[in-house]
């Protein structure tokens, strides 16, 4: 059971977001531009993979399943392949640039100061531009927020990974804005 009464039965982050639509709006706008904007040299699959990896490190079941399914949808991978990437991207066949960016994301998950000059140097040597490094750090940081919102309030969600795989094409088409059901009015007084 969740720690508070969201006054709705939405799964995962959608529960508190429908409960608090004023804060949900900029959070969803942020997710939309970071993960779905076409104006980005990182592919949507690559950006979802960064979010998935950080959510995995934060042990957030809901986020790693939602975004793992999204990454799989865009990258043409099944759940097993996404699981393998989360656990061992270093020995996978993704690009050296993505390996360097995922390494930076892993440091951000521990804390901002864990990112090193050397990690940045390697990412740039493999062709990462400033905007890609910026977005990697901000995606990783944003998932440290989303993951804590989901688990800090003990939200509940379906346990079957297939549930998330089935929904991924719809979410990929419609995006994150408007992903939250019309809110029940909450009295903030």
């Amino acid at each position, binding site marked *: 059971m969740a*720690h*508070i*009464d969201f006054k709705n039965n939405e799964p995962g982050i959608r529960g*508190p977001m429908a*409960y*608090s639509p*004023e*804060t949900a*709006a*900029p*959070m969803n*706008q*942020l997710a939309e*531009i*970071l993960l779905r*904007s076409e104006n980005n040299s990182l592919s949507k699959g690559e950006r979802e993979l960064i979010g998935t990896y950080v959510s995995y490190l*934060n*042990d*957030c079941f809901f986020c790693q399943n939602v975004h793992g399914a999204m990454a799989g949808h865009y990258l043409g991978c099944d759940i097993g392949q996404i699981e393998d990437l989360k656990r061992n991207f270093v020995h996978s066949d993704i690009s050296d640039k993505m390996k360097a960016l995922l390494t*930076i994301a892993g*440091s*951000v998950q521990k*804390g*901002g*100061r864990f*990112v090193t*000059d050397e990690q*940045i140097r390697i990412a740039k040597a493999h062709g990462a531009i*400033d*905007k890609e*490094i*910026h*977005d990697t*750090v*901000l995606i*990783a*940081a*944003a998932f*440290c*927020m*989303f*993951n*804590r*919102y*989901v*688990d*800090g*309030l*003990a939200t509940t969600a379906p346990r079957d990974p297939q549930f998330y795989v089935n929904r991924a094409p719809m979410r990929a088409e419609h995006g994150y804005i408007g992903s939250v059901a019309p809110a029940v009015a*909450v009295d*903030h*007084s």
Partner: protein
Amino acid sequence: MAYINVPEGVPGIRSLVMFRPETGKYLYELAQVLLRGPSPLTEAEREMIATFVSHRNNCKFCAGSHAAAARCLLGDEAKLMDDVLVNYQAAAISEKLKALLTIAGKVQILGKEVRQTDIDLARSKGATDLDIHDTVLIAATFSMFNRYVDGLASLTPEKDSDYVEMGKRLAEKGYSVPQQQPIQ
């Protein structure tokens, strides 16, 4: 020096938002609604929670600027901010705020660290669902801001006095996106 090419001499998150205003807009909107919008927690209490989490994340820029904002909002009781950072259980703050800071401290570690006993204690001190919601989201949001600011090695002013003006601006004007300086 920052890891990416942000405007020189601009401190902390402001430099990052000037580099990427498309995302910065929503980061500032979130800070404004969360820290200045409707909430059962006072603005000073919310800034204290933000500072507490930033301090534990070792983010000098966020801790410095939000502590300065909290001191402005606290007025004659500005010292409470410093007392909270030294030992919040001994500070002259409400029992409810102490229980909420305990929850914020758990969120700073990881969401799953928040236990039913933490929630029960907060409720026994008068915390409502909205108090708990806002506390968890402030702690989660600063777990993002702190990582953003330090993960890109943005400029962190060294002296405490550098933060006084920042705090005054945040207390009086809230959170609005810094405008790009016109190129001379």
